[in-house]
């Protein structure tokens, strides 16, 4: 073959492998879905995608597979950049054999995963697959297992992002579950272990795919998804934004972005209502404190009684955790503990300092909570905060009672700095409950029990429902006016930049999960 012919032949081979089957492409579009290749180019910087393993072929010869040519074996893999940040990416192609996963398909994915781990760059996976390629039998299962294994090895080494843009069911859904962030899109994403058909067979109950494991369900009810979007385009913007907040790998810090001035802080004083039993949106506090009021909330729709997400302070990424008084009074419960603990562990693994805003009445009482194992789940939060060695800074805004006070990154769990606003109430329990217990006998014996009780509540409130007892004991480092918050945080973060905390060596801890 002459050289010009070789070149021409290459162009033809390339086109054959990359141009989708028109009928399959039409079907994909009819579902409101982009093609795999379009998705990759939409996420990555223009012309930055470099594809590998385009000519990989499957080796299956059973069930008539020998004659079947599957371009790229149904998955596109490569590397590129997002706003200049390098990433490894794979995208399953539903137009090729339903994006089904065979051994060659899986090996393409594990190869790009191995690259990402070695090179220390984030991994982005786009899932759109009917599931295992049944013709390949156990080899297909082997493929899944090899992916899960690498997801686990990569955990805490490189950030892993999963984008669910189609069905992702059965065993396949465990790969996203092992990654750090899962993105879903309304009407497109479907995630479940056993589908509606099996549920109908085994349980006799009918449920639609959307109600069982659609995007909204995963983002709002199960907490399996971290980011929810109305369209693929919106989803890709979210992915790009997230990538700017996180580092390439666990040996680096996230890139700093130029400082945008914070919103005027005078408003901080006015966010918190005068009465301690009135709710407010704690995200207003976060936005008033961080650079440019720019806050990227994670798992915004699930367990909204705690708020977690990324923001910047002086350009540097910070992980924000805050009780949300506007939802369920900001209590800790099974889901909110789980949500915050996972976020804290991500931040700690990737050198992102933690800033915690505290305003909670405590753990949610309830039979359902106790029976759902709130002890074990609540302990995850204590574990995650205690285990974290990144800079940990806590601001007590208002209520910090009982076990909730300890759990929310108190000095006792290793906070580097604890600040409290003058309206903070730090005590073992609320004044009402405390007075009722301490003065039980005296209240019963008093001439006017109700008046006596009220007096004792007032006494307890004045003595303990303040930050000054905690400050007198050094549990709080400084009582600060709300408008000083940003300044204190910026300074604390700056001087903690080189923080090192050495712990006894161990293989790994045994957290309560």
């Amino acid at each position: 073959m002459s050289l010009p012919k070789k070149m021409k032949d290459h162009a033809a081979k390339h086109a054959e492998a990359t141009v989708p089957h028109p009928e399959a492409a039409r079907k994909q579009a009819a579902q409101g879905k982009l093609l795999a290749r379009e998705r990759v180019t939409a996420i990555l910087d223009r012309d930055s995608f470099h594809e590998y393993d385009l000519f990989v072929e499957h080796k299956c010869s059973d069930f008539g597979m020998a004659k079947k040519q599957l371009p790229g074996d149904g998955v596109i893999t490569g590397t590129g950049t997002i706003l200049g940040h390098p990433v490894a990416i794979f995208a399953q192609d539903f137009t090729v054999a339903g994006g089904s996963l065979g051994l060659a398909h899986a090996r393409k994915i594990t190869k790009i995963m191995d690259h990402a781990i070695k090179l220390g760059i984030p991994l982005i996976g786009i899932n759109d697959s009917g599931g295992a390629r049944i013709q390949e039998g156990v080899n297909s299962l082997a493929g899944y297992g090899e992916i899960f294994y690498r997801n686990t090895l990569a955990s805490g080494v490189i950030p892993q992002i999963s984008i669910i843009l189609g069905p992702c069911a059965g065993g396949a859904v465990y790969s996203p579950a092992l990654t750090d962030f899962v993105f879903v899109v309304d009407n497109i994403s479907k995630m479940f272990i056993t589908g509606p058909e099996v549920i109908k067979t085994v349980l006799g109950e009918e449920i639609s795919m959307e109600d069982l494991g659609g995007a909204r369900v995963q983002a709002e009810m199960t907490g399996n998804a971290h980011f929810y979007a109305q369209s693929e385009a919106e989803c890709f913007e979210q992915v790009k934004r997230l990538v700017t907040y996180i580092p390439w790998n666990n040996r680096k810090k996230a890139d700093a972005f130029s400082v945008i001035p914070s919103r005027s802080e005078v408003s901080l004083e006015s966010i918190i209502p005068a009465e301690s039993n009135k709710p407010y949106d704690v995200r207003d506090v976060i936005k008033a404190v961080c650079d440019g009021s720019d806050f990227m909330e994670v798992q915004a729709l699930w367990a909204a009684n705690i708020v977690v997400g990324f923001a910047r302070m002086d350009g540097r990424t910070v992980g924000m955790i805050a009780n949300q008084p506007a939802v369920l009074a900001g209590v800790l419960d099974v889901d909110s503990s789980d949500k915050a603990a996972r976020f804290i562990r991500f931040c700690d693994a990737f050198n992102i300092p933690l800033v915690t805003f505290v305003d909670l009445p405590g753990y949610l009482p309830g039979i359902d909570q106790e029976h759902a194992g709130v002890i074990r789940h609540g302990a995850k939060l204590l574990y995650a905060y205690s285990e974290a060695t990144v800079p940990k800074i806590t601001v007590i805004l208002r209520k910090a009672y009982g076990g909730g006070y300890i759990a929310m990154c108190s000095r006792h769990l290793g906070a580097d700095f604890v600040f409290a606003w003058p309206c903070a109430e730090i005590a073992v329990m609320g004044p009402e409950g405390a007075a009722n217990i301490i003065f039980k006998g005296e209240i019963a014996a008093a001439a006017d029990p109700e008046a006596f009780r009220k007096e004792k509540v007032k006494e307890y409130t004045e003595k303990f429902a303040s930050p000054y007892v905690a400050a007198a004991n050094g549990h709080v480092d400084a009582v600060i006016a709300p408008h000083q918050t940003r300044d204190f945080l910026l300074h604390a973060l700056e001087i903690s930049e080189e923080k090192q905390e050495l712990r006894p060596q161990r293989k790994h801890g045994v957290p309560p999960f």
Partner: protein
Amino acid sequence: MTQSATHSMTHPVTHPSKPLRQSIALNGTVYETALTKKYARRKPYVPKDPSRLTAIIPGLILDLLVKPGDEVRSGQGLLVLEAMKMQNHIAAHDAGTIKAIHVSPGETVAKGQLLVEFQ
């Protein structure tokens, strides 16, 4: 993984002798299984009815912010429910019209109790 496997409908069979048993045909194989009491007593799945707002937490109704016939926007406060030392503002999940309000100020409500019905 794939959802293309074939299943056949099942029918719980109550044998004269306990325990409760059920046969399940999955991919052409029929499995016999004993049902635990807990399973037999389980509450079947009921889709959430968006026209019914129920209490997410037990507490005391302090104030009603709307009345039947009112049109509300998504996120608008409907009532104030005091619980966990907090006057929780319970907001509308979606826009709609209030059909009925089933509680009044001063009333103590249990978790899951019906508060407001939408049209």
